[in-house]
């Protein structure tokens, strides 16, 4: 079933087109990687899909409904987003922050119950913050704050999860940990994930589908195996990329210098 759909979506940021006439169906069980160079509009597109920014034209649908006729609360019960930056200004415990994921599911006057606390503690355990539940969040490291933000998204438990560079600030092991959790949610719980990523090899390893933003409104979407190859990545990033076959499938590494302009493939 299609969980999130874009119909003829035009998105731009500061008058620069991000995507023109974007048509996508994101179905349950799909893990989408959103790739593109810096400043191309990945965050803008994700915010648009989350209903935080209005598109120039077109509509976004959640399940069978149009997003703009849904309340924020109804959206939040179905769609959640990990933002690119996480800053905690006021002192709270990590458990309290994780519990905020329950906010859209609770009635105004009801408190978080034991069930909610169990969920939150499980999410903290899953991201490796199990022993941190009483820690003040203002004392967390960048990577820990990142994992905490992901944990509260897991507690929110929406069908549609938008991740804006989820592996920022994370060491290798925790990058895999977050991506593993996302994968489990996608395949085991029939969710859909859209994740902006800069690490092509993480995308190759985890994503089932890829959406590429080339700038000037151009985009391309499809199955991961068809989308990720040397020429398309060279067009995407403007630097030379070599594909290496491994036992896990193709992996990519940049060759040459970043300052070299790559002419091949750029249309």
């Amino acid at each position, binding site marked *: 079933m299609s969980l999130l759909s874009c119909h003829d979506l035009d998105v731009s940021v500061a008058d620069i087109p991000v995507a023109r006439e974007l048509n996508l169906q994101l179905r349950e069980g799909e893990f989408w990687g959103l790739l593109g160079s810096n400043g191309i509009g990945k965050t803008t597109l994700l915010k648009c899909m989350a209903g935080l920014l209005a598109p120039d034209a077109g509509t976004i649908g959640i399940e069978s409904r149009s997003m703009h006729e849904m309340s924020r609360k109804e959206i939040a019960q179905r769609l959640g987003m990990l933002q690119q930056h996480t800053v905690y200004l006021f*002192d709270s415990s990590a458990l309290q922050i994780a519990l905020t994921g329950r906010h859209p599911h609770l009635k105004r006057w009801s408190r978080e119950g034991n069930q909610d606390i169990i969920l939150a503690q499980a999410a903290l355990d899953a991201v490796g913050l199990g022993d941190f539940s009483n820690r003040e969040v203002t004392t967390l490291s960048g990577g820990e704050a990142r994992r905490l933000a992901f944990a509260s998204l897991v507690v929110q438990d929406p069908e549609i999860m938008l991740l804006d560079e989820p592996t920022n600030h994370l060491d290798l092991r925790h990058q895999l940990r977050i991506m593993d959790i996302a994968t489990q949610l996608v395949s085991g719980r029939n969710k859909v994930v859209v994740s902006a990523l800069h690490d092509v090899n993480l995308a190759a390893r985890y994503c089932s589908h890829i959406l590429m933003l080339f700038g000037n409104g151009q985009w391309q979407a499809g199955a991961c195996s068809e989308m990720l190859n040397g020429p398309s990545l060279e067009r995407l990033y403007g630097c030379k990329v070599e594909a290496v076959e491994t036992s896990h499938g193709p992996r990519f590494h940049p060759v040459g210098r970043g300052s070299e302009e790559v002419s091949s493939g750029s249309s």
Partner: protein
Amino acid sequence: MSAHPRLLIIALAILSVFSLVFSSAVGSVALSPSEWLEAIKHPDSATGEVVWRLRLPRAWAAWLVGALLAMSGCLMQVLLRNPLADPYILGVSGGAAFATLLGMTIGISAGFLPILTIGGAFLAILLVFSLARGEGPWSGTRLLLTGVVTASGWAALISLILALGPDNSLRGMLFWLLGDVSHATPGLAPLAVLLVVLGVVILMARSLNVLAMGETTARLLGENTERLLWLIYLLASLLTATAVSLAGPVGFVGLIVPHLTRMLLGADHRVLVPAAVMFGGLFLVVSDTLARTILAPRQLPVGVVTAVLGVPLFLLLLNRAKLKS
């Protein structure tokens, strides 16, 4: 939620009652516990008059003002996502002060001054509301800048009145500007404002928690933030206006008390707000009792005492926070 915060709120409530009793027993005629009980039982006796007609109303006014300002401070700090925001930062007290001093200058009788104060406060609120609303979505920065700039505009007008005003009313104006509960006559309205707003705020306390994590986060967690933020602005302004109409712009309570309470109990507004209300009331009753006894028979405006207590306390807090991070 553990029982610990609830116990602390109850403890603060008991201390509040105790502070009212204590405040009504000390002064130029100091009363022992038994004398105080006699005075309470016999309102018509000389001491009964002092307790019932002078000290209790004044202590009660101080408690109300402290409670109102503390809650307003909690709201402003979430609204502007700035732990250093206070109830006056957006100019509510400036408008109130301008209207009140203008009234004093042209010789309006003291009984009508609170009405002018409320009117000035609402003028300031509406001014900021309409200027900051503008087009496009909510912007906290625009609200902050509009508020701070109109506040300094009011400050300029107040200076003008002080510079041009008649000498014989300067002292009264100064007392009013510093914050003084000695003339406050709280009816039922301030208590009603406190209780109604407290009820609304407790109902939306979880939304405040979410909002404290940032406006975008709050929207992603299902809040209609634009409506929520304007509601918070109006509630906080109403609290401030009520407090200022009773006692003038008493400083520091609205800044320090939310802070201290947050340090003690954490940032969960379901606990923070009621605790800050109790603590704010207690803090101002103690401050006002000091204000009328330290230099007796002279009486100080309570705002001087809150500043004298507040500034070192606040610097201490800042220092502690620095050590922590």
